[in-house]
């Protein structure tokens, strides 16, 4: 077993990798005192949490295809041990992102803030974000040990396929947040799409190798 995979098997390492980048806005806001970041600090934090949630969601979805495509690669196997942790972390960042968004819309009064949030949620841009958040919430709750057992593997798996719907919604959400098409969306979601296509291609060739006729004769 390689050194890298040994390190990646460790839970504290993964926790650090999840939490530390989330704290990054403190650096430009309080240490280097970056004028651009400090001009609208809440927006800066809002966007950062959104990006973190996005990256973690893409990461966790990449783990299964990675394992299927490289079943003997110890790094992929090590990372696959943390699927639940990374998935729940994606939800946690999405929730933080949403909470900061509520704060961002706060205008000093509850009524005004709710009115503003209500107006925003009528737009597909904001609505897709909220639906994705709700999906991630459902996935986080159903990741509790007791619930996994109660639901049974099949149902659990079916529910957790919703993660792909969430990813598609998040990609749309991210594109909508910009006035011109943001290239970053391609480098965030592109690799996941490639991995998924490769996995589908691989499992298809496997099925055809056995073939329906072969299974009959078995």
């Amino acid at each position, binding site marked *: 077993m390689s050194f890298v995979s040994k390190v990646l098997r460790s839970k504290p390492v993964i926790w650090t990798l999840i939490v530390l980048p989330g704290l990054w806005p403190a650096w430009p806001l309080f240490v280097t005192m970056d004028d651009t970041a400090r001009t*609208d*600090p809440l927006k800066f934090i809002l966007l950062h949490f959104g990006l973190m949630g996005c990256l973690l969601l893409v990461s966790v979805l990449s783990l299964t295809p990675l394992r299927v495509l490289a079943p003997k690669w110890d790094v992929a196997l090590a990372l696959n041990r943390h699927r639940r942790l990374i998935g729940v972390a994606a939800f946690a960042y999405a929730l933080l992102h949403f909470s900061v968004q509520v704060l961002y819309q*706060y205008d000093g009064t509850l009524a005004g803030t709710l009115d*503003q949030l209500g*107006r*925003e949620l009528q*737009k597909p841009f904001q609505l897709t974000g909220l639906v994705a958040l709700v999906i991630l919430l459902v996935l986080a709750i159903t990741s509790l040990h007791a619930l996994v057992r109660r639901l049974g593997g099949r149902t659990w798996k079916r529910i957790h396929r919703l993660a792909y719907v969430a990813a598609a919604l998040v990609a749309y959400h991210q594109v909508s947040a910009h006035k011109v098409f943001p290239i970053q969306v391609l480098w965030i979601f592109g690799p996941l799409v490639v991995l998924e296509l490769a996995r589908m291609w691989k499992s298809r060739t496997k099925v055809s190798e056995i073939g329906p006729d072969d299974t009959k004769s078995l």
Partner: protein
Amino acid sequence: MLIRSPKDWELPESAATPERDYLLRPRSSEPSFPRRDFLKAFGYGAAGFAAAALLPRRLAATTAGFPTRINPAYRDPALEPTAYEQITSYNNFYEFGTDKADPKVRANRGWQTEPWTVEIGGLIRNPLKLDANDLVSKMGGCEQRVYRFRCVEAWSMVIPWDGFPLAKLVKLADPKPEAKFVTFTTVHDPRNIPGQRSGILDWPYVEGLRLDEANHELAFIATGIYGRPIPNQNGAPLRLVVPWKYGFKCGKSLVKIDFVARQPRNTWQIMAPDEYGFYANVNPNVDHPRWSQASERVIGAGGLFGGRQRTLMFNGYEKQVAGLYQGMDLKRNY
């Protein structure tokens, strides 16, 4: 016992001019002296040029007309100007990148805004092509006005602009009767402007106004901010300012002002006609398809985590400009 009797030339504190009536200056420690004043002080000799070469590059914009005169008619004491650092560090200038931090860095990497030639043409009796500094002199120098600035992205600032009323330029151009609109074209120089090497927008950036809008007393050409030459990232050396419209109407780094007969198509309208129109008047009742315009984030207000306020019709200039749009359906003409 010594009793101090005031001399008759000593004025009481109450006679002092309130601070807000002074010319607004940035609250930063950076020295601020326009290059022309400096040159004047030293003469235009070799010493002057040598000294000019030592000056920071970001001062190299239009420098005629400084120091500015305050125009008290456009100084609403209720408006608290946004900090200079925020106005000059948070910019949408896609010619230099789509991130708000990009223009401050990339527009100051050798892109020259002095000398600068601007062309005024089209359906006018006095077409001319002249240096930006000469234009400012022709306009009678600069005045400072404090305007609200509302971005289509639902954030706002309050900016002390220095410059001259656009109406003066229109008068100089002397439009023919068939001129009904004015277009404002931003510089196109892909070699020195990195963003223009990619096709994110249809370069050059073009904006337009109806002639009566251009002649409105609020329409302004800015050559400075806070009593200093306008920094490159804010659209040096000549920038259109139309305070009752969304910020994207305020074309930056203008090289051409054309008087035309038909309504032009502005860059964002070409890009996404269902999202950005020709008028782009600030209107809390007409949303952007992707976000609400009912309220806005006030940059720099309420401490580090900011404030939010209701957006005002025509950005608070309803009394002055509503007449321009009488009988128009503002939902259709967004």
